[in-house]
């Protein structure tokens, strides 16, 4: 398979490329109404510092805080056909695409990157809800395939952050075909014996939930995320009754056995690291601020090099201000 034949030289994204936030702007929390200072909000990963409400976060911003030193290398994704159906609703699909690209500064609705989390090499893919609702079309399918292939080539786990209103209708049947396509990608990963961790974020719906977002070895969701196949409005119209409070939210799915864990965004990095290292048979991680890996300029370090480096120091115990167990739904 040569999905990635257009390999490009890795770009190193440094901390300094982080978008400058306007200093004088405030955001109102949708959940509690508190006015939050932009910088304060972004420093808290777009989680309300007052009520813990999780707002959307762009893949690039997530990766900057997820990877060691904010350093990651984008994994190239093969570009699919543009507008394969010649789709037009009230607008032409290529016009919608251009508007989304302009509005987000991104090429498409998924970003794939490799790097290290706590000196543990991983491949990450994150869906961008702000790009046409994160919708799954050919590009997102290609991105998942590219992510899985890179993970298999380098023997790394794949962590996928899902966020989507569902399939990209403008690609018609080809968007539907991303369900089997992405499933093939996940199978390649599983057959290679590599962990596939899904983090479901708000909202994850439709064909995305009904394919790669539900096939993780470990299924984690961010608090309050809407996770469903059919959306609540469609269901209410069908059954003609009001749905209970919290229906199809992360906590509800946890209760109904559909998730392993619900974990706040601010605790995710540590948790992913812990899980991935156990599944990869690596010793416990050192939880501390590590400098960027020195080996990066020669390409990311190999897991073997890792082992010796991290063998000695035991994992630091959880700080006293850690979340109470129920928030992370432990045990």
């Amino acid at each position, binding site marked *: 398979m040569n999905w990635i034949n257009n390999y490009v030289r890795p770009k190193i994204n440094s901390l300094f490329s982080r978008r400058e936030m306007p200093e004088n702007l405030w955001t109102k929390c949708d959940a509690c109404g508190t006015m939050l200072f932009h910088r304060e909000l972004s420093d808290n990963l777009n989680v309300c510092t007052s009520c813990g409400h999780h707002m959307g976060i762009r893949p690039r911003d997530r990766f900057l805080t997820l990877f060691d030193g904010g350093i990651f290398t984008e994994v190239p994704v093969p570009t699919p056909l543009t507008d394969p159906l010649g789709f037009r609703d009230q607008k032409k699909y290529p016009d919608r695409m251009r508007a989304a690209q302009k509005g987000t500064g991104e090429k498409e609705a998924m970003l794939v990157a490799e790097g290290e989390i706590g000196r543990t090499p991983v491949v990450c893919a994150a869906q961008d809800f702000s790009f046409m609702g994160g919708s799954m079309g050919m590009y997102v399918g290609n991105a998942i395939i590219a992510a899985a292939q890179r993970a298999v080539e380098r023997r790394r786990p794949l962590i996928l952050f899902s966020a989507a209103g569902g399939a990209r209708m403008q690609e018609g049947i080809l968007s539907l075909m991303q369900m089997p396509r992405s499933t093939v990608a996940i199978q390649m990963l599983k057959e290679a014996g590599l962990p596939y961790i899904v983090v479901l974020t708000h909202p994850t719906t439709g064909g995305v939930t009904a394919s790669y977002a539900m096939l993780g070895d470990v299924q984690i969701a961010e608090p309050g995320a809407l996770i469903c196949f*059919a959306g609540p409005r469609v269901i209410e119209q069908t059954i003609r009754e009001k749905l209970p409070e919290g229906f199809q939210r992360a906590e509800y799915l946890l209760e109904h056995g559909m998730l392993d864990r619900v974990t706040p965004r601010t605790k995710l990095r540590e948790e992913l690291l812990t899980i991935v290292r156990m599944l990869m048979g690596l010793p416990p991680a050192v939880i501390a601020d590590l400098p960027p890996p020195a080996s990066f300029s020669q390409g990311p370090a190999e897991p073997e090099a890792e082992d010796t480096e991290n063998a000695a120091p035991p994992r630091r115990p959880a700080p006293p201000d850690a979340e109470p167990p129920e928030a992370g739904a432990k045990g």
Partner: protein
Amino acid sequence: MNYLEFEKPLAEIEGKAEELRAMARANPEMDIEQEATALDRKAATMLQELYKSLTPWRKCQVARHPDRPHCKDYIEALFTEYTPLAGDRNFAEDNAVMGGLARLDDQPVVVIGHEKGFDTKTRLERNFGMARPEGYRKAVRLMDMADRFGLPVITLVDTPGAYPGKGAEERGQAEAIARATEKCLQIGVPLLSVIIGEGGSGGAVAFATANRVAMLEHSVYSVISPEGCASILWKDAEKMREAAEALRLTAQDLLKLGVIDRIIAEPMGGAQRGRDQTIEAVGRNLRVMLKETTGKDRAALITERRRKFLDMGSRGLAA
């Protein structure tokens, strides 16, 4: 005979001919034959005109026609020794999904399909062909069994989509569909699929991720219903004609896109006007597809199936 909205002029002519013949039966001295035959001819021409170039929206209507042969009809006519096997072993039996062992000619197979029901009572029993999680989980169980015993799997797809209900969501509809698609991609036996009516989104993919996918001439296969698409993209459910057009959900377009492998011709006026003929045609095509895939080893079947889906999207339709 149930007429579709666009068939109304046809209904009038056929109705008139029928009326004439009824009158003649009551008054044997009346000679109406010439007139009735002329009407018949007119009706036949009109039928041909109507079906020569069905718009995508009309195809949706034909695909949903209540008189079209359903899964149950195909199973009864094409297979012998059909032995239904029920239940997902976790929660319930799902009557929207038929499944079991059967023989196609002498070859034992596992057959699975959506059944919509044919009258009010059976439609309710079958939930209009909208599977719940248990239906997909039953299918996974049957595909596993087929894989263990080396039996080909034949799926007949005819569903508006998964059931948007409270319980279905609570019991993990999305996960059930994902697992069924995954299972389709894992089994080392031939998996053949025919879209016989409506191929509605994830509910269809869960059964149709197959080595060979055929579609009846006037069936449709889509990521979303034209009504659903219209209400989201046009903010007006009445724009379903436009949406059906844009979605490219006809068998003809899907063949060009490489999403399906063959089209099974329907009799003039659609499957509902020639049920036996349609069922026979599906049978013939299933035998051909079975022959094409029989004798390949497990790995080849799995690899070929995966490759087929990975390669999808290299061809477009845009002019």
